[in-house]
Each structure stands twice: as C-alpha cells, then as structure tokens.
C-alpha cells in the first residue's frame, strides 16, 4: 500500500508539490495524470528516495520513507521515464547487479533473472549488450529489473514515453499482467489513453495539486457520455451530453463529429487544457 499525506516539495519559491494526499491500495493500478511540470515525476522521485520532500509524510508497504528508508526501499521497484540501464553491460549483468544491490543470493538472482527474462519474452537476450537493444526491449528490461527483488509496489514513470503505438500496447499488456499477479502499480503518464486503458483509479494533477481522483468511469461520467467536436476554421470546441439523443439533437454548425466521452475530455474540462499541452 502507498500512503501519502500532505506532501510538499518546494524548489526555491516554486511549489512543485502543493499538499498531495492519497492512498493506493494493495494490488491496485493507480494512474497519476498531469501535464509536463505538474509534479508527477517529483512525486515518484520523493517516494523512491531520489528527492527530499519539503514536508509531509509517506509510507510504502507500511514503512515510512524518511525514517525507515531501507525497509521502504525493499518494498518497491521503479521504472524511470528514461532508460537508466548500463549500456555497456549485458541484459543479464544489468539485472544481476540490481539483485546484488538488493542483497539477493547468487542462486536467487540467477533463478529470478531466468524467470523474468522468460516473463518479458527475452530469454534469448540475456547475453546481449543493452546498447544493441531497441527502445522497446530496453524498456522491457527496465521493467524486469524493477521486478527482480519481488517488490509489492511498482512505480512506472512514463513507461511508454518515446515508444511507438505497437510497442506501447505490448508494454501495456505486460503492465496488466504484472498487476494481475498482485503488484500495486503507481503509473505516471501523459498518454491519457494509457491511464484509461490500464488504471482502476486516476488522479489528475495540476500545478502540484490533485484536482480530481476517482475511477476513469466516474471521471468521464462527470462530464457526460457523448461529445460533439465542432470545427470552425482552426478552432475546435467540444460540447458534452448525457445521452446520445441529446447529442444528436445538438445543432452544430459547420463540420462536427459525434463520439464517446474519453478521459481526455474529463481532464480537459477539469483542468482547462490538454495533458500533452
């Protein structure tokens, strides 16, 4: 379980996090959505010990991240938004070093590396140098590495950034699989469809504050069920309706499209701008 209470982070006069409080239940897949600079990565960096909080409290698996640092660090694995693998080492060596850092025995490391490489469908790549892997394969290795010490919590910071749509879908399938095996997942993303597809609950973050937190369905319902996009020149306006009938009777001028409301609509109506602005 992840528990965050009144988390603040200041960089000089700038408030990167402005009183974040939330709880993520064991086994839940929780998405943390927001535009660039909203404070998503800062939250993960604080929870994973890379950045100091200004004030507040947070615990991972019941262990306080400030006072029980070592125990808290055993609770999670983290996949950063950048690929932080040793490019000059092989896939096996990268995973093995991680296991050593977590005090795993040689036998346990070898067994777990074999299992995870099969899990990410890369068992034939153990001796491949990381620098020769594609972006998608590197990302899979970072996920395997984060799971090596069998953490209960997995932090995924923009896990599909820079990947093409097909590879992104494969990573999503992997994330689903991990969550179905009982791992709590805290996902930050600005691919809104990623959150919609994967998450059980979503928090919208803007300027270091949570502006909404609910299931994707409830967030979308708060806007409506149907949307009409109107195009006039280079401008687009969207109107939301509870029923398709009302949407159909809406007298839109010029070119328009009727579609189901998505999470992006909920985000847009609550925050007033797109996630990928």
């Amino acid at each position: 379980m992840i528990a965050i209470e009144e988390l603040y982070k200041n960089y000089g006069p700038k408030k990167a996090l402005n009183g974040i409080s939330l709880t993520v239940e064991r086994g839940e897949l929780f998405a943390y959505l927001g535009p660039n600079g909203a404070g998503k990565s800062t939250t993960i960096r604080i929870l994973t010990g890379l950045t100091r909080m200004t004030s507040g409290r947070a615990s991972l698996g019941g262990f306080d991240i400030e006072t029980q640092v070592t125990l808290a660090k055993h609770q999670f694995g983290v996949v950063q938004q950048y690929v932080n693998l040793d490019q000059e080492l092989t896939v096996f060596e990268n995973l093995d070093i991680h296991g050593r850092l977590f005090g795993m025995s040689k036998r346990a490391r070898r067994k777990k590396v074999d299992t995870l490489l099969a899990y990410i469908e890369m068992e034939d790549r153990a001796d491949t140098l990381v620098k020769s892997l594609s972006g998608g394969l590197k990302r899979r290795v970072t996920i395997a590495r984060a799971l090596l010490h069998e953490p209960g919590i997995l932090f995924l910071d923009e896990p599909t950034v820079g990947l093409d749509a097909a590879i992104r879908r494969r990573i999503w399938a992997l994330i689903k699989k991990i969550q179905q095996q009982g791992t709590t997942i805290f996902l930050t993303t600005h691919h809104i469809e990623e959150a919609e597809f994967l998450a059980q609950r979503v928090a919208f973050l803007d300027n270091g504050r949570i502006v909404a937190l609910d299931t994707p369905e409830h967030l979308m319902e708060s806007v409506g069920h149907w949307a009409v996009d109107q195009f006039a020149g280079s401008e687009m306006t969207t109107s939301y309706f509870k029923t398709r009938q009302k949407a159909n009777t809406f007298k839109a001028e010029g070119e328009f499209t009727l579609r189901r409301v998505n999470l992006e609509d909920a985000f847009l109506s609550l925050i007033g701008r797109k996630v990928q602005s």
Partner: protein
Amino acid sequence: MNPFINGSLAVYRREMLIFRRRFKRQMAGQAISPLLYLTTFGYAMGGELRFDGISYLDFLVPGLVAMASMTQAFAIATDINVARFYWHIFDEFQAAPISNGSYVAGEVMAGITRAFMSIGIILGLGLLFGVRLHYGVLFWLAILLNSFFFANLAVALAMLVKSHADQSLLTNFVITPMAFLGGTFFPLDRLPAWLQHVLGLLPLTHASTAIRSAALGHEVHWQSLLLLAAMGSVIFPVAYHCVNRARD
C-alpha cells in the same frame, strides 16, 4: 553478508564489469602517457641527467607511479559523472537499499583498482627501460593511501559538479597542475622556499616523496604516510556528505 559490504561490492562489481569490457582500450590508453614521459623526459632528455647520484629514469618512474595513483583514481569522477548525468545510473543506486557509505566505498575501491592497474603498466614499462626499483610494503602503502584520497575526492567532486564541462574544468584546474608540481618530474628542493611550503600542502607531494623514497630503498618519512592517512580519513566523510547532498 553485512549490508554495507554487500552494497559496496555491488557498486564495485558494476565498475569492474565496465572496466573489463573496456579493458584493452583502457590499458592501451593508460600506457601511452607513461610511455611518452619515459621516452621523452627519461630516455631522450634525461640520459645524462642525475639527481643525488641516481639516474633521471630512476627518479622519474616513482614520480609517474605517484602521478598515476592520483590521476587514475581521480578518473572515476568522469565515469561517475557520465553514469549520473547521461545514463542516470546514479538513480538506480539511490533507489536501492544501500547506504551512501556503501556507494562511496564501492566507487573508491574501483578507483584504487584502476590506479593499481595503471601502476602495473608503468612498472612494466619501467622494466623495459631498465629501471629496477624496490617494491616493498611502504611503496604499496603510499600508493594505496594516495589513490584512496584521490578516489574519495573524485566521488565528492563528481557529486558537486552540475555538468560534464564542470568536471573537465576541475580536472584542468586541480589535477593537472598537481600532476606537474607535486614532485613527480623534478625535485622540489630546487624551488623557492615559499613555493616548497605551498607545494608541501598537496597530497601528491607527500605521495611522491614517500613512493620515491620507498622505491629507491631510502628511509620513508612516516610524516608523509601519516599525512596521507589523515587526509584520507577526512575526505571519506566529505565524499559521503556530498553523496547525501546529491539528492535534490
């Protein structure tokens, strides 16, 4: 296993794996400078040159050993920098349940290993040039203390700098002048007294003195070894503190 030792060994193992992968080019790179120094300063220019009854080559090789124990131990700063700013490997260490002390110890051991490898090359080249010296315990102890100090300094400064460019500047302003003025290439007693006092503050000066004395079979000044040990005992907590501060 003790968590401190376990963490240090994991960090050290990573550095050694990278070192092994770069072994040939690293060894070739480390051989070039001493080979040039031995050829130009020692062989071509110094054939007739003698200090206190010893040939310049015999004088030069211990100096090169002292210099290499500094430069090669300090060179880990660049690797740490690349791992921190470019590959973000430092984040992997920070998110792992190892202490910052373990991290410093692992990197320092890597720096010392690198220094000893380089010294092996210099001594091998020295043999090719006909240099036979004494390689007793105090000779190796002085090298160990000197490389320990500079590896710790490397970790500390690598944590303080904000970019690769800053790292190069530090090397240019701190390490390069010390390499030339720390009693490596010429005896310091020929310099003005005030400058000797200033250079006496440099750890490399004491390392050169101790390593040369041991290598030539002379009495080693314990003050030099004690001073290096004292500097080492101060710089380790400084490096630890700098790693702590590296969390933003």
